[in-house]
């Protein structure tokens, strides 16, 4: 497996390398110098943005030493976003994932490959002014597509559901977002709902709503700090109608980030999502999520 990961990591490093020079100024084009992470950027016609987000996370479901399943995942989301119109952003995200699920017996399953692609369209329905807007209101619609292959072990048998990288289902999503810009400060409120359908092995994830409230302070043109709260409320997943004992409920994360722009049109972000309020059903213990991203305006 290590040998399989090496080329992935090398190519990932290549993707992460910024270009030798920038040949456009995105913040000039939209009239706002705020450093924005992928997904929160202001639109202008023809804006094209690439990004890579590395994320490491995990969770343990069940009782330690009795029936716990420990999941660890490293993933790299490669995303492209394009604004064909001043009010419309189209984006696609392809996750590359490596996942390990370990039982208490130390029996392990590992899977790696392409995950489920997500495509979205974000329409900005309201801007208080065309250039350098202070208030932005947008709606988001999209779908997660079953692009992840069914992973198998060396003997040809299917890996367990928890080790599969995709759900095998077509999952529509829709959301709302409001952004406000005031001097060095900016604010974001957003909520996105997911309505998963049934996928592989009879599994259907629970319907969920994910919400974010964040404030960002940018004392200089090169860097900014961001502090947010992310919350997720979801119904329980089921397999062929039989509800899963663990999962479903509410969880909230504290989300500090640091954004840095080493050169024009490149934004590097690093942050962590720390679970601080866990009311998920059953026994689910998530780890903090470490994140690092690079976004590049072409």
């Amino acid at each position: 497996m290590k040998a399989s990961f090496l080329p992935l990591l090398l190519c990932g490093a290549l993707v992460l390398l910024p270009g030798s020079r920038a040949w456009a100024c995105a913040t000039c084009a939209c009239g706002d110098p705020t450093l924005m992470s992928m997904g929160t950027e202001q639109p202008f016609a023809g804006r094209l943005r690439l990004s890579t987000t590395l994320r490491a996370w995990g969770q343990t479901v069940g009782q330690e030493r009795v029936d716990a399943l420990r999941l660890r995942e490293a993933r790299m989301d490669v995303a492209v976003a394009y604004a064909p119109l001043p009010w419309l952003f189209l984006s696609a995200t392809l996750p590359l994932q490596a996942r390990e699920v370990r039982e208490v017996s130390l029996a392990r399953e590992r899977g790696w490959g392409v995950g489920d692609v997500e495509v979205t369209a974000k329409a900005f329905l309201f801007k208080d002014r065309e250039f350098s807007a202070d208030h932005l209101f947008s709606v988001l619609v999209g779908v997660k597509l079953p692009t992840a292959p069914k992973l198998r072990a060396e003997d040809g048998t299917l890996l367990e559901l928890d080790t599969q990288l995709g759900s095998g289902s077509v999952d529509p999503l829709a959301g709302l977002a409001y952004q406000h810009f005031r001097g060095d400060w900016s604010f974001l409120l957003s909520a996105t709902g997911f309505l998963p359908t049934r996928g592989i092995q009879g599994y259907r994830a629970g319907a969920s709503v994910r919400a974010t409230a964040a404030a960002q302070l940018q004392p200089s043109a090169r860097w900014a700090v961001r502090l947010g709260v992310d919350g997720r409320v979801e119904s329980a997943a089921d397999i062929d109608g039989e509800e899963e004992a663990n999962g479903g409920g509410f969880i909230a994360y504290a989300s500090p980030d640091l954004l840095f722009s080493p050169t024009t049109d490149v934004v590097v972000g690093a942050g962590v999502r720390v679970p601080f309020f866990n009311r998920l059903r059953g026994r689910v213990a998530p780890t903090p999520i470490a994140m690092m991203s690079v976004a590049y305006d072409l």
Partner: protein
Amino acid sequence: MASVVKSLASSTALLLLAACGGGERIEGMSLSLGITTARTRSAPVPSSGRTLVTDAGAEATLSGARFTLGSVELLPCESTGWRWQRLWDALSPVGTAWAHTVSSATRLGTPHVITLRDRDGEVLPLGELRPAPGRYCRARLTFEPADDDAVGLSDAQGSDMVGLSLHVSGTVAGADGATPFDVKARGRSSVDVSLDGLELSEDAPRATRVFTLAWDSWLDGLAPGGSPGNLDVLGNVARSASLQTSAEP
């Protein structure tokens, strides 16, 4: 432009590599469990196959015996680390809730209906547990009523064991000849059997343990002229369990 080409080429290469997704499975700890029957006292003379003498001196012959082993649960040896772990769990600020499960890595929850055969020593496989590495001192055997999908129901030799934890029949010898008896139980009884310090580790990830039930003590407490209907036969079955280390299930 060169940077764009580089980014696109790198991304394409990455996608192609990742498209060759794969998986692997690595086995962990496993404990195979089985159960058998044995005579542990000297046979009465003259003896037939299933004739026994109780601890109170009564002589009886079993013509049929079936019981339901509802679950087998591994119990870890207590350690200081466990106590600290429990304290840590209790103080953890991240809330968790408990879920109830029937089977787990340390518990075989599939009921087995076990029939006393004509010969002892035949090992019935109960299943395989996949517990965490560590030392396990005892196994808790619980005998309880069978549900309608218990393993071995069809082998119960004419007895419908659904809802029953035990069905024993036979005769008790007396001055006036042999008196037949037929005892059914719907109760529950548990016993902890020592595992002789079973240890599972990455160096020794697999083990096998077989439990032995001493059928010649199942009517203990029965005095000459008494009736097995007044006995705790299910408790006797549970208490007759011990560990046999040499057999393979």
